[in-house]
């Protein structure tokens, strides 16, 4: 049967392009382009696969800022049908993000809400439980596989020590792990089509006080020698020396 699926996606700076300011020791994010966050990509892939198998519709919600349109287009190219960009994101505050996302989700009809179990930049891992609580629906956490039959969802979840088989009925919030799937690279035609598709944009109205104050934000120290050999023989000799000393 067809499902209404909502996928929650996040925009993050391309972390590989983040350089460190040598005088302040702080990472520089200004000017770094945004991309679709890693686990959000797995979430989109999971949602689109459920749609491809059962029919239905995938809507994506992104709480970000104006620059998030690029990221939404990435999601469109992967197979998302409708996109909602909510602007007003000013930084990592999981409680606020969950409230903003839940408010929008409640305005839409849904059977499944899919999101990442832990995002690649802030890594808080809090959104799944917070969103499920706000919506008052069950959470299937950290899934490695998902199966649907009518209004029932079965999933396998992996903890450090065990694999657990779970079952519940819709509506449900599902958090996916990196191992769930290998996100697709959309074909060029899809990317061009996605570029022309409209995005529903609105400003967030929820305000929330936070007691957080940042004291410092520095890159971890790295004082490696960085001797890189393109001459394999020479490099191998050096490395063998280092290994022999440590053995």
């Amino acid at each position: 049967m067809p499902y209404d699926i909502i996928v929650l996606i996040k925009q993050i700076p391309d972390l590989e392009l983040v350089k460190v300011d040598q005088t302040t020791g702080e990472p520089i994010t200004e000017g770094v382009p945004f991309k679709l966050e890693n686990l959000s990509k797995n979430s989109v892939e999971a949602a689109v696969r459920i749609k491809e198998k059962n029919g239905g519709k995938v809507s994506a919600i992104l709480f970000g800022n104006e620059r998030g349109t690029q990221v939404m287009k990435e999601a469109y190219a992967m197979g998302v049908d409708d996109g909602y960009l909510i602007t007003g994101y000013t930084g990592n505050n999981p409680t606020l993000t969950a409230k903003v996302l839940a408010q929008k989700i409640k305005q839409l009809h849904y059977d499944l809400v899919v999101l990442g179990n832990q995002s690649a930049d802030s890594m808080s891992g809090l959104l799944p439980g917070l969103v499920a609580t706000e919506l008052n629906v069950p959470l299937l956490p950290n899934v490695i596989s998902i199966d649907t039959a009518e209004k029932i969802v079965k999933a396998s979840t992996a903890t450090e020590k065990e694999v657990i088989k779970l079952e519940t009925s819709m509506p449900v919030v599902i958090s996916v792990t990196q191992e769930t799937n290998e996100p697709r690279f959309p074909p060029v035609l899809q990317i061009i089509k996605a570029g022309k598709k409209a995005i529903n944009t609105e400003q967030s109205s929820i305000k929330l006080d936070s007691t957080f104050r940042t004291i410092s934000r520095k890159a971890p120290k790295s004082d490696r020698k960085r001797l890189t050999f393109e001459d394999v023989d020479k490099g191998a000799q050096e490395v063998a020396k280092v290994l022999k000393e440590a053995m």
Partner: protein
Amino acid sequence: MKFLIFSDSEDSAKQVMTFLRGKGDFVLSSTERNESISKYGAQKVLLLEGKPDPKGIASILSDEFSNGGYDYILIASTVLGRDIASLFSGQKSLEVTPEIFDLKFNETTVITKRYGLGGKAVLEEESKSKVFTFLTGISEDVPGDGVSPKETRSIPEGAVKILEIEMKKEKEVNLEKANIIVAVGRGLGKKEGIQQIDPFVKAVKGEFAGSRPVCLDYHWLSEDRQVGYSGRTVKPKVYVALGISGQIQHIAGMRGSKVVVAVNKDKNAPIFQEADYGIVGDLYQVVPKIMSHL
């Protein structure tokens, strides 16, 4: 001060109890059955019995936190722990500081450290948080005096049915004690690569480790050999990274290594920025060359 702890990992439980000793009273709650956790100075140990449903556990913690006069709750950042923390904080409308690796107390505030930007930044923050998830390695592990009394609580079942629990097989690997670690990444290309690299690992008396895809996705190595933010933190004398690109989440687990060696065929791979010695080349050609010089 009084602390409530949840940890389903024995190691994390012991570390956080060592960390809190002398700072106040603490109660440990756990699904872990090992007797040794009761020797770390907890006022009591709450053994949680039943199926590990995060919502059920969150509701037990919620009652205990409200009725037991606690100031703070610390939850181990494990797969189960993170879900419990988010369900707990959702229920109680309390702000969480996630993934901390350091915590200090002021009069009315706390000062915490955690990673931001996937590990590219260390965030030092002040807040009034009462709820934390903490990373493994927050402290050493030193047993305390006496034996904590135990109580049991049963985990209530909720809307999510747990149909089956299958234990993954656990082999003892002691990456923490190895002098030399040879870590392989996706660049290995195939499972048989493990056998091809094995003579090298033996020759240097090292231990195998892997990046997340190698351990969790392809199962070329067992999961307990995964190094990184969501795996193990290691500090060997020499860390040899073969066919690992050097994503920040991997670096987070091996940053403490004394010397880092990297072999990668892409000379722009980020791992070379985090290495002392880098060799640009195909690992299957470079490794035999290194062996010939041993």
